[in-house]
């Protein structure tokens, strides 16, 4: 065989001249794969060098049970992993992370769905404006946004002052440096992802289905729950997965909105590695967080794809 790349075009010519139908699939294959692979090479190299290798290195670190990394007598064990289960602090941190992420998903879903529904029913121009509005918070740095929340949520911030002056509460609510604060921050930050994925799936629903429902006698309320909502489940699922994964791994928002009161896993991991210099234990915690996210997402997806509405995923 000749080298593939440089002679590819000549070979194609030769092959089409010979009337041999068996060579057809081979020719097609070469045409599709070679340029595709070439175009993907830079990103593959980038991901390999800056993602796969560091991840493998962290995995390697997580199995070293000596604290002194430079030591030649490194001991390999799963001690770092078992440590998590022996100390309730880390287990409760993991549970806290999952809990806060779930709350953020729910808040984003209930705030986002009506917006998505409105967008899907609007004209293309209005939809453009709403998209711009939804995406615009992403243009502001997350740190700046969090300090913005401070002004509202602090004990003497706008919200507490308003509620107190109206006589609804006597003492300021603990909105900041609490779980509520973190959920507010996370759901706010990731709301655009929820809205945009729901819109995409709402927009794919054939509008005549709603008409068909109406003609058969279903009220708008009924149509929403029997037709629109079930058919938008793929968007809901992907939006939930996005917000959940992002919330699970969020560091800045929990650190600023929750501080030491809300020690979610990313904050704990940062602490272990940067402050306590426990690189190996921090690495193990990272992998535990990753595994928790992946398993949760897998179960969540499974439940929907095998459940009552499995047909909408096809």
């Amino acid at each position, binding site marked *: 065989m000749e080298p593939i790349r440089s002679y590819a075009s000549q070979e194609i010519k030769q092959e089409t001249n010979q009337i041999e139908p068996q060579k057809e699939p081979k020719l097609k294959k070469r045409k599709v794969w070679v340029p595709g692979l070439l175009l993907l090479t830079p990103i593959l190299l980038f991901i390999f060098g800056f993602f796969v290798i560091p991840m493998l290195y962290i995995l390697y670190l997580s199995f070293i049970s000596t604290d002194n990394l430079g030591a030649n007598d490194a001991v390999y064990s799963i001690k770092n992993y078992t440590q998590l289960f022996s100390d309730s602090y880390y287990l409760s941190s993991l549970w806290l992370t999952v809990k806060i992420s779930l709350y953020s998903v729910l808040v984003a879903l209930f705030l986002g769905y009506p917006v998505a529904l409105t967008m899907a029913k609007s004209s293309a121009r209005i939809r453009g404006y709403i998209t711009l509005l939804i995406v615009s918070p992403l243009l502001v740095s997350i740190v700046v946004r969090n300090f913005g929340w401070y002004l509202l949520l602090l004990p003497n911030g706008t919200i507490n002052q308003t509620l107190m002056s109206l006589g609804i509460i006597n003492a300021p609510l603990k909105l900041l440096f609490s779980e509520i604060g973190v959920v507010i921050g996370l759901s706010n930050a990731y709301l655009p992802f929820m809205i945009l994925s729901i819109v995409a799936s709402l927009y794919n629903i054939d509008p005549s289905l709603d008409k068909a429902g109406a003609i*058969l006698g279903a009220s708008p309320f009924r149509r929403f729950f029997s037709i629109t909502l079930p058919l938008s489940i793929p968007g809901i699922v992907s939006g939930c997965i996005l917000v959940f994964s992002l919330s699970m791994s969020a560091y800045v928002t929990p650190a600023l909105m929750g501080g030491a009161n809300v020690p979610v896993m990313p904050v704990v991991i940062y602490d272990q590695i940067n402050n306590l210099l426990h690189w190996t234990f921090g690495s193990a915690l990272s992998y535990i967080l990753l595994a928790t996210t992946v398993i949760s997402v897998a179960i969540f997806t499974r439940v929907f794809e095998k459940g009552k509405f499995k047909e909408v995923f096809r």
Partner: protein
Amino acid sequence: MEVLKKDVEIKRHHLEPVQQSVSKKNDVEIKGAFKQFGSNVVLNGIDLEVKQGELLTLLGPSGCGKSTTLNLIAGFLDADRGEVHIKGNNVTKVPPYKRDLGMVFQTYSLFPHMTVYENLSFGLKLRKVGKAEQKKKISKALELVKMSGLENRYPRELSGGQRQRVAISRALVVEPELLLLDEPLSNLDAKLRHELRAEIKRLQKEIGVTTIFVTHDQEEALSMSDRVVVMNAGKIEQISTPTDIYNHPKTEFVFQFIGKSNCFEGKVSAVDKRTISVKIGSDISLVDADNIMGNDSDLKTGDEVKIYIRPEKLKIVSAEETSFSPIDFHRANISQINYLGTSWEINVLLQGKSIQVLTSDIDSSWKNGSEVFIGWSPSEVMLVKK
């Protein structure tokens, strides 16, 4: 749960065959409907009456207002002016889900997350039909469209033709006041279209449900309907039986839109009670006085007119045999002969104009350039004032 306008226990149409003749009662009446989208007038004063039990077709080019009219009846659109009455009730302000209609859409519109059975039971549940009764009605409705046994399939697992059959039975299972069909065949291939066309016609007659059918396909309209409504630019051009629409079009638009047509321009040379003589070039053609299209039927000598003739109504003969009466023949030359299987399409030059003739008789000696005689009967020519 829904409270429907009418008690569903009252049986209107049955899924069992009932021989029901088209009566004089009107099931649908549209009065002076006017609808505008922005500056675009889509319905410009529509008056329409649909008789009980008939299959009425709204036919016209895209943008003529036929779909808008159907949406008005369904309740998906509100007219700017005018009223819609269904079975004697003014439903102009009634939302679609309270109108108790059945509708079949171009895109099938089966609920993709429901099985065939669930699709059919959707409307029945809303009407609070009991489980056992539902089952009976659904199996009967599926049998009607020859889809029994596919209850547990999802729409995705059905072919286009099967989906449309299910859609039809979903519309019928609730025993609606009216059946609305919005171009239901246009997504299917030619063979299936033919098959379903015949089936819809048979079903409609069997069940006797008043049906309004929207299509842009004239063949569909002519073959299926009891009456055809030809629409153009937001107005009704003509409402009549298919044969009448084809043979006695009221307007120039109807003639041109339906079937093929040849057109001559000429001048009225004489008018009497029964016939009008039109001078075309150096020839004279006679036209029945009844065959004047358009509103302006008052003709005088010297008026500029157009006359229309269908290609299959033209007689084509060799030079020798010119003794038919009352047909007047005109000298012409063949410019092209096309064989179509069941007939020949012959293009001839008559008075310098290219004319199309459809005939099943052909003289084997004819070839391009042959001199022939083209004739037509005064009763088959339509005339319109220019």
